[in-house]
């Protein structure tokens, strides 16, 4: 019985940490859907957003004001990226665009450290990273409050985005752009403004991910590397599917925790650094387009 309980506990912890991956991957998908840009800088944006938020708090701004200021900053950053990096590169090969966003990663990382320094900071969201008493008493499993809170936030965020996409005018325009750039442009949708909006939204998503992650492990440079784990999530989920990345994030989170728990001790631990990637490769061999991705058909 105990082993089932342990399994469940590891599974739930994994699922909840997978929510964090989903959040970062969500930012990737938003941008990829709308502009076919694989935004490698999403991880750096997460780092930048969290650092900016903490920075404002440390300057003495209250919580909500800091949040508002950071949202403003992220929107500015997103718009600026669209204008100065992507607009000159329109119609380039997608690998060129990827490389440009790798360059952007360096700029954002440098900027964040230049403005806010390199120290590890703490974010206090008012939610403690401690096990929930009620669950611990009744089932004996240790589930962190913070993880549950993160899951709730992620759920809300996805719901809000879903409404935004399906019910608003901007959302319709977004979907049109995602479907076919040229056609969207020809019916009068302002392509570049839509791209600006998408980058801004991705910035806000990055902020949410950064705050939750920062509350868990402190705001530090390592966030950038943790964010790389969103890449296998994308592969498994498919580059263009929002439900896909949510499911894939959960799969990756659970699988890596289970692997670390059951296989890790046999090989000396630390499997978490590579397990998601290998999982993604195995997945690719079976389903190259991801769980919910569009089937890729290539013609000569």
């Amino acid at each position: 019985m105990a082993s089932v309980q342990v399994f469940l506990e590891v599974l739930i912890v994994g699922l909840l940490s997978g929510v964090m991956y989903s959040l970062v991957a969500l930012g990737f998908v938003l941008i990829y859907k709308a502009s076919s840009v694989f935004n490698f800088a999403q991880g750096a944006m997460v780092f930048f957003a969290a650092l900016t938020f903490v920075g404002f708090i440390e300057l003495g701004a209250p919580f909500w004001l800091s949040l508002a200021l950071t949202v403003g900053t992220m929107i500015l950053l997103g718009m600026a990226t669209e204008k100065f990096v992507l607009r000159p590169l329109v119609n380039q090969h997608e690998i060129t665009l990827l490389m440009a966003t790798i360059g952007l990663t360096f700029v954002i990382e440098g900027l964040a450290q230049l403005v806010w320094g390199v120290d590890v900071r703490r974010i206090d969201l008012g939610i403690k990273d401690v096990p929930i008493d009620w669950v611990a008493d009744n089932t004996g499993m240790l589930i962190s409050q913070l993880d549950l809170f993160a899951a709730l936030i992620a759920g809300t965020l996805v719901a809000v985005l879903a409404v935004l996409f399906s019910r608003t005018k901007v959302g319709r325009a977004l979907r049109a752009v995602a479907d076919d750039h040229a056609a969207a442009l020809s019916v009068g949708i302002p392509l570049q403004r839509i791209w600006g909006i998408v980058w801004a939204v991705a910035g806000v998503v990055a902020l949410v991910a950064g705050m939750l992650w920062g509350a868990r492990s402190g705001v530090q440079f390592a966030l950038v590397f943790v964010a790389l784990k969103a890449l296998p999530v994308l592969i498994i989920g498919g580059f263009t599917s929002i439900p896909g990345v949510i499911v894939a994030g959960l799969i990756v989170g659970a699988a890596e925790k289970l692997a670390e728990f059951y296989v890790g001790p046999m090989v000396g631990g630390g499997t978490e650094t590579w397990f998601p990637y290998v999982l993604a490769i195995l997945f690719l061999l079976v389903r190259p387009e991801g769980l919910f991705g569009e089937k890729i058909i290539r013609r000569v």
Partner: protein
Amino acid sequence: MLYREAGQFRTSYADDARIFPLALDKYFFVAMLAFAFIVIPNVASQYWLTALLIPWLIFSLVALGQNILTGYAGQLSLGSAGFMAVGAFACYNFMLRIEGMPFLVAIVLSGLSAAGVGILFGLPSLRIRGLYLAVATLASQFFIVWTLDKFGWFKNYDPSGVITAQPIVILGYTFNTAAEKYVVVLGVVSVLALAAKNMVRSNVGRSWMAVRDMDVAAEVIGFRLMYTKLLAFAISSFYCGIAGALFAFAYLGTVEPSAFSIDMSFRILFMIIIGGVASILGSFLGAGFILLLPIFLSLLFHLVFGTSVDQSVLSALELIVFGVLIIVFLIVEPHGLARLWQITKERLRLWPFPH
């Protein structure tokens, strides 16, 4: 240019297929090589050799490997540093475990080991392409470094994690000083660069470029996709592996997994972007540029801000300048420094006449 091609006609296919169609180009190149082999080791200071020339040559070699895979064969890879690590550790273990293993043989064997690993991690390229492949190659980067770190056998159960590399001995002569190591590195790099140049000019290179430009079309006209792609992975990893071995033995003097981080993989990728994608010369130019940039920037910042500046501010500024340069290069000159050099050459060819 100081010279013109007037009077030098290509009258046969053999003439047309030469590396240096112009006699003066050839003489110039031979003179440069002689200068690099004979004059530099005798006059260059310790600092120049150890901090600039040796790493430059080694990174040029990796950039060549990356350029073969990414530039010529069109397979985006973010795992070059991982293959370098394979080479470094393979070389260490061959030297350690086989009595009397000659250094040059060990180097070649380590290249072959890296090639084997490269083929293994190149297998996904048969089913996926582009961005998906880039992520898959990240797996090789993390997995290789983790494996080398976790399994003590590779490190000969050394508890410190930092192993001293064996001395470089070729034909009974020990290459100890910086100048001697430089000559070894230069020799290896020259041979491999020539091989790379000839590969990309021949049918192998053309098959890579066909696959890069449109793989379905290449398959239709009769290129074997699997063979071509895996060959690119193997040869690219071979170059990376040899460079990794040289990096550990001739530059660092130690063998450690942490030297081959994901950061290094990115830097190698930038070398070929800035130097010039699908260009042999570009690999050398890009490696030099990326290596010199931090040195140049810190000199510049010290000049501008004085010596009182915090080191962390400098490294942050360096990151920003680095990123901006990459973006600017992609926007302004996607073909990199090699292309700029070509344009300059074209201009000089006519200079001082307008047409």
